[in-house]
């Protein structure tokens, strides 16, 4: 009647529901399992649930995407709030998005729209820091040291540290711009993202330092390899752990260079034209496609930073031409592609920015920063698709009820990936710092 397989990878992502547990309780004892014991197991299962998501693709719309112009339309609101875009039906009855997302509207049963995210950090660099690390920035907005998360690691670094690499690809890759909030903080350089600064939509796209300079002939490459291997063999006898650590990274680098899988993962040119077109021949589209290839190659956390969303001035033309359509195409293609490849269940896709945008259109026909309400879109990785979670008020200016916070989001991703969000690592001062600073798993999402 009821199968208990807590802690095994095959278990249902929701673990054991309280209702099931209660039913068990009323059934009396099953194999010595008392209600309290079951409830305790359930409490534990919330943390130790077998991972659903092997990897995460985090699509970050830098600058703050306007939630009301995309995922949270307010057709009843006055024009200065509603904006020029219309609400359209999706393939999920009762769910509406704006007409700028026609492709996503067709597959709304494959993802979930969370409309009640919000926080109160209204700056770019500070908001970015907050979303990536779950911690308030200690610096003023506008200070842009790179990376700006000097102390707290970004979530990708936590994934790298907790799960490590699978295969020859680095566990945490970031493209196409180094993330300001994406540094490893006190975790150190080995958990910093492997950054691909090139634009994969360009014909000459290549990953920096992955291939030797083109000027080198095959025979020279052969000589170099032989010399280095020979020197290594002579050096081996007097190496200490520190030197060995460097050796390990050299080995990983060699694996990365030599690995057919890795080379293949990075080689977006190998992708059929039809697929490349489906994602859109845009920077964002091709980054999303590359992210899929990297996930297939074993990368755990791919951060894609899509710039240009800070639309303070005359925003609607650019939203209509460059921004939303590109995101619409990239996101829908990614979700569809992952599903067709059977990867959607094990790949979590999250799309959001550091904030939403002001309800009222400003005097320059733009929208300003508005961190109190934002929409986050989730697909795959053990999330329940086809839902709308939460809502904002009639002007999309505030969440109804308490907002889902940054740490709720990070805790949810953490649990989905099988990482204990409360696991601590010691800071240089010896203070245990948990991966996620509080928060609760988002209700109804998993």
């Amino acid at each position, binding site marked *: 009647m009821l199968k208990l397989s807590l802690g095994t990878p095959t278990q249902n992502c929701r673990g054991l529901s309280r209702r099931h547990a209660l039913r068990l309780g009323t059934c009396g004892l099953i194999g010595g399992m008392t209600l309290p014991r079951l409830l305790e197991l359930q409490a534990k299962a919330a943390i130790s649930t077998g991972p659903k998501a092997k990897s995460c693709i985090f699509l970050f719309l830098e600058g703050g995407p306007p939630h009301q112009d995309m995922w949270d339309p307010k057709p009843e609101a006055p024009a200065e709030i509603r904006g020029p875009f219309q609400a359209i039906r999706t393939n999920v009855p009762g769910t509406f998005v704006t007409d700028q997302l026609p492709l996503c509207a067709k597959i709304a049963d494959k993802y979930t729209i969370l409309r009640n995210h919000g926080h109160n950090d209204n700056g770019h660099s500070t908001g970015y820091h907050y979303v990536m690390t779950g911690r308030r920035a200690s610096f003023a907005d506008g200070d842009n040291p790179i990376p700006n998360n000097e102390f707290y690691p970004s979530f990708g670094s936590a994934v790298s540290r907790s799960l490590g690499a699978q295969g020859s690809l680095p566990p945490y890759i970031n493209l196409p711009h180094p993330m300001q909030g994406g540094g490893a903080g006190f975790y150190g350089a080995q958990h910093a993202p492997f950054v691909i600064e090139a634009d994969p939509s360009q014909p000459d796209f290549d990953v920096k330092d992955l291939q030797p300079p083109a000027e080198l002939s095959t025979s020279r490459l052969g000589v170099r390899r032989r010399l280095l291997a020979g*020197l290594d063999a002579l050096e081996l006898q007097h190496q*200490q752990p520190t030197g060995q650590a460097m050796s390990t990274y050299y080995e990983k680098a060699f694996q990365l260079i030599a690995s057919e899988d890795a080379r293949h993962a990075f080689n977006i040119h190998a992708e059929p034209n039809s697929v490349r077109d489906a994602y859109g021949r845009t920077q964002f589209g091709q980054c999303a496609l590359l992210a899929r290839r990297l996930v297939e190659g074993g990368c755990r956390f791919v951060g894609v930073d899509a710039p240009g969303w800070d639309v303070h001035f005359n925003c609607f033309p650019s939203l209509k031409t460059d921004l939303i359509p590109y995101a619409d195409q990239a996101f829908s293609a990614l979700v569809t592609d992952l599903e067709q490849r059977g990867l959607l269940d094990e790949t979590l896709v999250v799309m959001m920015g550091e904030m939403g945008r002001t309800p009222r259109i400003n005097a320059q026909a733009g929208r300003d920063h508005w961190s109190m309400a934002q929409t986050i879109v989730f697909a795959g990785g053990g999330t329940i698709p086809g839902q709308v979670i939460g809502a904002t008020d009639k002007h999309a200016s505030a969440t109804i009820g308490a907002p889902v916070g940054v740490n709720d989001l990070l805790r949810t991703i953490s649990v989905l990936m099988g990482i204990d969000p409360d696991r601590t690592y010691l800071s240089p001062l010896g203070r245990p710092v948990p991966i996620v600073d509080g928060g609760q798993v988002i209700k109804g999402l998993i």
Partner: protein
Amino acid sequence: MNRYPRLCLLKLCLLKLCALIALAVCGNFVSQAGELEVSPSTVLLERPEASQQIIIWQADSAQRRNDRTREATIRVEPAGIATVDERGLVRPLANGLATLLVTVGDQQKSIPIVVARMNNPEKISFQHEIIPILTKARCNSGGCHGKAEGQNGFKLSIFGFDAQADYDAIVSESRGRRVAVTNPTNSLLIQKATAKIPHGGAEAILPDSDRERRLFRWIAEGAQFHFQDAAVPEIVRIEVEPQEQVLLAGETQQLRVSTVDTLGRRQCVTSDSEFESNAASIADVDARGLIQASSVPGEAAILVRHLGHVTTCRITQPRLEQTFERPIEYNFIDTLAWEKLQRLGIQPSTLCDDATFLRRASLDVIGTLPTVDQARSFLNDPAPDKRQRLIDELLDRDEYADYWTMKWLDILRADQLTISPQGAVAMQRWLQSCFAENRPYDEWSTELLTVQGNTSAEGPGSFYKILNKPDEAARAVSQLLLGVRIECAQCHHHPSERWTQSDYVALAGFFTGLSLKQLPNGEQALIALGGKDLPHPRSGELVPTRVLGGSPADFNKITDRRQVLAAWLTQNENPYFAKAIANRLWAHYFGRGLIEPIDDIRETNPATNPALLDALADHLREIDFDLKAFTRTLLNSRLYQTSSQTLPSNADDQQNFSHYLQKPLPAEVLLDAINQSSGVAEEFNGWPVGYRAIQVWDNHMPSYFFRIFGRPVRATVCECERSGEPSIAQALHLLNAPELFEKISHRHGRARRLSNSNQSPVELIDELYLSTLSRMPSSAERDLMLQAFTDLDRRAATEDVLWTLMNSKEFLFNH
């Protein structure tokens, strides 16, 4: 409270038991192994939830006391009075007298057990007996209810440092649901903690355990904080047995922890205390205080913590079978280092060769590789004192000031975005002159501490632009100049030290007179005038300003409060100042501090060689804080000149300097080394050609190389910011980067010059080795590299040999 009945009972019991003890002792049979000894000599249990850890000692033929507790057969007679578990924890069952009988091999020993007051025990003190439960079960840890905002609406003070707040949270908040005095079983506190109802932290306290019973009784007694009729005696300290112990590989040792209160009463709190090893690879400790020695020789300190009190047990783990050949002694460093190594049975490695010494000392003192000519002349110099002369020459080089300025800019947080480029330059020039003129350290650190005036004028004034709050300044100065991390005490009692929040605000009081004034030209001036005492963060009472561990400061006729602090800092009696800088320099040159982390000096984090650190601090004071002279002493020791090649007996030693510890080159030094070896200078964006990476004060100058090799962001005063951790991106960069390819194949570079010359391939290889590794190649290496010249044309071969050497671990590390 009337204490007499208890004392009378005790006396009576002791009288009765004297006879028993005498009998037991007479019955002992003396064998080769020493006599058994049981600690403590009587077990007194006066509460139902009390427990007493015993340790059974036996001396071996080498007169070492060994813990035999877990091998012993332990019985309680008669049964029914008390129980004892396999680890030697005695717990009460019913009032009465009993005997604990211990048998190890053919030896026996017995001690009396007194169980009393089971029906009318002393009432439970929240502060002394409930807080430790919350700590031990980790309820009040930073990942749980101890974090700043609590967990699910229930917030406790971290480590239980604020008993009153915790009491209120448990007893008063949440409409009193957490404790139900009339029906303790229904208390949310117990139900949650034992996971009888769902609890995110699962089963933190085992049902039916002593801890649950203690919680239960405390609630049943009315869940009081204090009792009107019982002035709860303060706990004055904790004691641990043993305080030091020699363990051989694989051996175990149980600890026994007691509190001592103002009445001198001792109570066993072993099972309530927390334990932590500072060197788990040598000796680790479990939650019940059982130490397990590994097979790595060395020393470990086991930190024991209970209710804000800390103490340590020092474990020494020697390798006894090792014969020790004492190397030559060049100075006092060697004497003390060899003594320690001899005691541990670790043989130091041999003296490093000349080439290694040249490269090591150059990279360490001036952050710069020796040139080919310097290497050749040093290697060919037959003079026996050439190492001493090299040290003197290096200390006289301009790069000495450049390199040490860079290091101090990092820890003085000269982040140009925060303190402005002018501020960073002002700081850089000031440091440069301090090092170039070799001003005494106490003098310039006083200047750093008491600086006033225009922050853009040469000087350290911009230090206070970052540390613009009194407490930020206090903790930075404390960590930087004293090696005391008082930061923890900002929010709570320091978890492994005696520093409290009072100490924290008392120190911050020295910096309350500081202000930044805007000057007409847009620059700022730092002014120190007056000041005030600061309130305690919890009680709000003003805390008199005082130095760490001192009495309230006297500011009579003082305008700048910081001067009082500076005077204390640099006086000879200061217990931290000289040690902190000695340890900092030691860590730079030897790859690891005598105290590690280097700026975390406290009793519970002892130096691996305390005598050596004391001697170094004394030496520094004797030479009036002359840092160059001090460096000379370090480098002239035989210890610094030890090879990094390990011996079987020292391969796993990481803390006693038995072999030189390899260090990755800092990002700037590595880039300069690449440039110097390739013969192609770097052009830094916005800087004149010829500037070297160690001279660039702008920590935000965009550079892919610096980013992946971990240049510090200058956000803390901690040297730990400089990450030496390797990454794949680093390896890829060195292997494939076009930037490196350009340098190696540059038409004015070293490789091109060599391949255009008429030197033989062997001569070319020799020079490339000298330029990168400062040594001649071995014949095997020469043969290997010559292969390139048979397979490729001369120019390609030269470049590829250089590339190979730059990618060798020997190049990337100081070894």
